[in-house]
């Protein structure tokens, strides 16, 4: 067991898969010589060489388009898009090409590729470098969407993504890169589409992903001190979604709160709320409440960004108020 930062876990996860399978290649801007702008890929160029670790021109469409073509030849590319915001620059490749290829070729062409990207706020990078784009991605059939919240989850889920026959978008919460977590020794392989219950309580269920997971946990700890018990679910994967764990957790408390970093409209929590309303309506003892960033572009000032993203205090206050 080792204590690793999230950013070190990214490196370890990629290295694990590249050692295991020589078909795995890494391409992205500044990933090789510089070791990644978030220092998530240092040493990979040295270990695996320039044939497998490629610094790309600043051409996001080409990075993903080439990853698609490379996957068609049997490689298993891991393509880094530096900031998830830049997926907008190459969304044609994601939404029109990569995600639809299996379907439109009648299943004849598989694209086992991974798109990794730094997602979300917390670093004061402003509206074009801080977005939480999981809800864009969720809306594209054919794409899998994963948000690991801990170093160990990142390694296991990244490995699962690399080995998955479908394209997987791995959203790395950039606010969590410096955060440490325990990582078991040896190879880690997780399963896509399995949520994790992080704690249980009888009064409310908090559902979160990514950077909102530690906040939901802290909020739950604070509420526990006040005698309010919360179940906290880390969905870990939005597509596929672990509906069973979600519904069981809601059934156990009768109250559902989603904690979402994305702006409110069409955030993933809306889909969760819809599923719970359809499948578990009798279990609900009160309204489903969504705790989100407002429907605004994310500001860069520290005070404003903190205000916009769901904070521990806002989670706590919202839950306690709703429970009465």
């Amino acid at each position: 067991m080792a204590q690793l930062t999230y950013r070190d876990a990214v490196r370890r996860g990629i290295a694990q898969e590249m050692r295991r399978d020589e078909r795995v290649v890494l391409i992205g801007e500044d990933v090789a010589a510089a070791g990644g702008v978030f220092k998530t890929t240092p040493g990979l160029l040295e270990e695996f060489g320039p044939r497998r670790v490629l610094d790309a021109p600043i051409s996001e469409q080409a990075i993903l388009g080439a990853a698609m073509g490379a996957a068609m030849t049997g490689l298993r590319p891991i393509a880094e898009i530096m900031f998830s915001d830049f997926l907008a620059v190459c969304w044609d490749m994601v939404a029109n090409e990569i995600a639809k290829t299996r379907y439109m070729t009648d299943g004849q062409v598989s694209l086992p590729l991974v798109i990794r990207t730094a997602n979300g706020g917390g670093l004061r990078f402003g509206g074009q470098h801080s977005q939480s784009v999981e809800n864009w991605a969720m809306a594209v059939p054919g794409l899998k969407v994963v948000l690991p919240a801990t170093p160990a989850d990142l390694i296991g889920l990244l490995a699962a993504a690399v080995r998955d026959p479908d394209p997987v978008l791995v959203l790395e919460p950039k606010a969590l890169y410096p955060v440490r977590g325990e990582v078991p020794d040896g190879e880690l392989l997780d399963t896509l589409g399995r949520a994790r219950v992080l704690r249980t309580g009888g009064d409310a269920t908090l559902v979160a992903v990514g950077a909102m997971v530690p906040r939901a946990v802290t909020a739950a700890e604070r509420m526990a001190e006040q005698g309010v018990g919360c179940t906290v679910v880390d969905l870990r994967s939005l597509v596929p979604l672990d509906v069973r764990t979600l519904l069981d957790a809601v059934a156990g408390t009768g109250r559902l709160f989603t904690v979402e970093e994305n702006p409110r409209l069409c955030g993933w929590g809306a889909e969760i709320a819809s599923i719970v309303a359809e499948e578990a309506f009798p279990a609900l003892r009160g309204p489903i409440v969504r705790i989100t960033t407002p429907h605004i572009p994310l500001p860069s000032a520290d005070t404003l960004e903190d205000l916009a993203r769901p904070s521990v205090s806002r989670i706590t206050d919202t839950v306690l108020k709703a429970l009465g």
Partner: protein
Amino acid sequence: MTVDSTAGAPTTAPAHGSPADAGPPELVQLLTPEGERVDHPAYSLETTPEELRSIYRDLVLVRRFDSEATSLQRQGELGLWASLLGQEAAQVGSGRAMRPTDYAFPTYREHGVAWCKGVDPLNLLGMFRGVNHGGWDPNEKNFHLYTIVIGSQTLHATGYAMGITKDGADDAVIAYFGDGASSQGDVSEAFTFASVYQAPVVFFCQNNQWAISEPTEKQTRVPLYQRASGFGFPGVRVDGNDVLACLAVTRWALDHARTGQGPVLIEAFTYRMGAHTTSDDPTRYRIAEELESWKLKDPIERLKAYLVREGWADSAFLESVEAESEQLARRVREGVRTMPDPDPSSIFENVYAEGHALVDEEREGYLAYASSFVGAAAEITDGEDD
């Protein structure tokens, strides 16, 4: 592409693929690194000693506030700073070539162009402090907000240029971008549009040799200015550390554009003396000798040498510019340190032109929530998990 020495207009002879470093023979230069004034047959430039002193002052002041900004970032007063160190001549030369009504679309490093456009450096610093998104009125300054997503602004500039021709104006537009951005699809599409629509836009590429950690060889196998020929418009490589050459070539290019002859690509061959941003450490990926060799081509030293040699600048003048630059640095430092934090409720402003029911509701919710704390907003922004 070569330049026709009689007409002052580049020929359309196709460029042949040559290594990206085969630049020097094709480099337009009016002031050598040693400060010798040389003529170029295609790009003549008449200057008065007074104008040269004014250019010198711009260069020094821009460098000074840039270095002050780097210091302020190191002291925690700015979230980030993208230094223009080494690129002062490319920016001030091209910036001064514009008429007031010519419009510029910058990247995030065009502090020298901003200066020429009359944007207060404090506005730039406010943005990098995170308290605003620029704060100047682009329509008043004819200077768009900094564009952070690489290359996008080349398309905005092209559309703007197409738009002003419909007004019958004889203004022109400059799209600033870098060597890294040249790999973006946006830039190729901007070249295509500008060419087929004869848009009055000058594509001003500051090739500072590095896109974060990636050298220009990672972006192109031919000198960047040669790309223009494939799109059907002239491309010129200019010594980007020569403010006079940058001024002359950009002025020519803007006139070419505003007289209906279509776009021009200028590649200002320069060097990013500092880090990509204060978050970057270039010692990880580039060698010190390269930096040292470019120090000998410093844009300010060569103009200073020229001014002094000609007897157009005495020590009193040089000292007055120095003093003025220190004054600017002080103003900038004090201005940044006393910038008020933005009003929390401002995050709900300008999301839509006429409001939005959800956003209005969210604003009211926040205000009510914030007012429930003794310390108001500070209490609810505890974000202690990360």
